[in-house]
């Protein structure tokens, strides 16, 4: 799987939208049927290219949300940005049965491999959860037992991605813990006010640096830099902190 995923030069290919579902009022998962897909590692992404009738092209990268299983499909979760050029098309326009052009899988650095034995800390800001969810899913597919902790920062309860699935996995996937940080509005009865991710959250719900965890941080650029700086300040080895920045605000 990993072998074929990183060999040979890449070209663009056509994929067919096989299924779609809403994850939140503004985020939609696209299930893509990609002929001869070589498989992928959790954390990898694909590039999507749209071509207008006049030849104008727009290209964006999207993290893969699904764990690879032979014969399986490729899932992306797209967060709609109202002033975006590509995402509103993918969330609100493209219909099942239609095609789009993609290139991938790409990226071999921000990936988790089931052979890694260290505990894992995942820190997600907004739709930065997507590649980290692929890691959670890949761990379940591989049936491995590395302890995983996910700290997921999200604006409001309505913005949560994969809420039902994460609740189920916390019950069923042994060794998976999830902690939420709400930045604008908390659920009723939540023990603390809305706040941004901070030292206390990463210290309390992450792993102690002594455990030597592999840390993955993904989200908007400012979120990623804040969280990575806190992890280093708490004593985590910078070489074990992998980051992926999405650019603008979540």
């Amino acid at each position, binding site marked *: 799987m990993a072998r074929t995923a990183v060999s040979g030069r890449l070209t663009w290919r056509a994929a067919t939208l096989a299924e779609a579902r809403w994850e939140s009022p503004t985020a939609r998962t696209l299930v893509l049927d990609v002929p001869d897909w070589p498989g992928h590692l959790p954390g990898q992404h694909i590039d999507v290219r749209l071509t207008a009738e006049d030849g104008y092209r727009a290209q964006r990268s999207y993290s893969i949300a699904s764990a690879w299983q032979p014969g399986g499909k490729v899932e992306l979760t797209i967060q709609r940005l109202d002033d975006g050029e590509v*995402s509103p098309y993918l969330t609100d326009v493209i219909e099942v049965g239609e095609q789009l052009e993609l290139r*991938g899988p790409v*990226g*071999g650095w921000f990936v988790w491999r089931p052979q890694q034995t260290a505990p894992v800390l995942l820190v997600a800001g907004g739709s930065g959860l997507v590649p980290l969810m692929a890691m959670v899913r890949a761990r379940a597919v591989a049936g491995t037992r590395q302890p995983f902790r996910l700290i997921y920062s999200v604006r409001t309860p309505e913005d949560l991605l994969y809420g039902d699935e994460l609740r189920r996995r916390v019950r069923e996937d042994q060794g998976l813990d999830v902690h939420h940080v709400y930045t604008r509005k908390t659920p009723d009865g939540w023990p603390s006010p809305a706040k941004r991710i901070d030292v206390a959250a990463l210290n309390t719900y992450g792993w102690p640096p002594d455990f030597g965890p592999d840390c993955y941080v993904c989200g908007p650029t400012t979120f990623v830099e804040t969280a990575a700086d806190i992890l280093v300040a708490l004593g985590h080895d910078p070489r074990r902190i992998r980051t992926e920045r999405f650019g*603008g*605000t979540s």
Partner: protein
Amino acid sequence: MTSTPLDGSSTAGGGLPLDGNAMAGDLREIFAVDVTAARYVCAGCTHTDAVGTLMVWPHSPGLVARCPHCSDVVIRVVRAPGRVFLDLRGSVRLEVPLEGG
């Protein structure tokens, strides 16, 4: 045409940098292996790390990747119709992991 970030948010981002991960697709059209996992040595300050950790500004006619340690330009990728220009002069060397190695 530039490669832009992972949820398409760069247009709303006001010029915040991405990272080397965002170059993965354009580099994989040129190279037979993934270059984001390769280690660069910065020509400016000799800092070394994975290409994935470079700071990338996509709001230009190409991708400009800078060293997070000294901010010198390490890699530039500029696409033009039918070809691509790759400028590596800011990188003393690339150490590319080989599978099974």
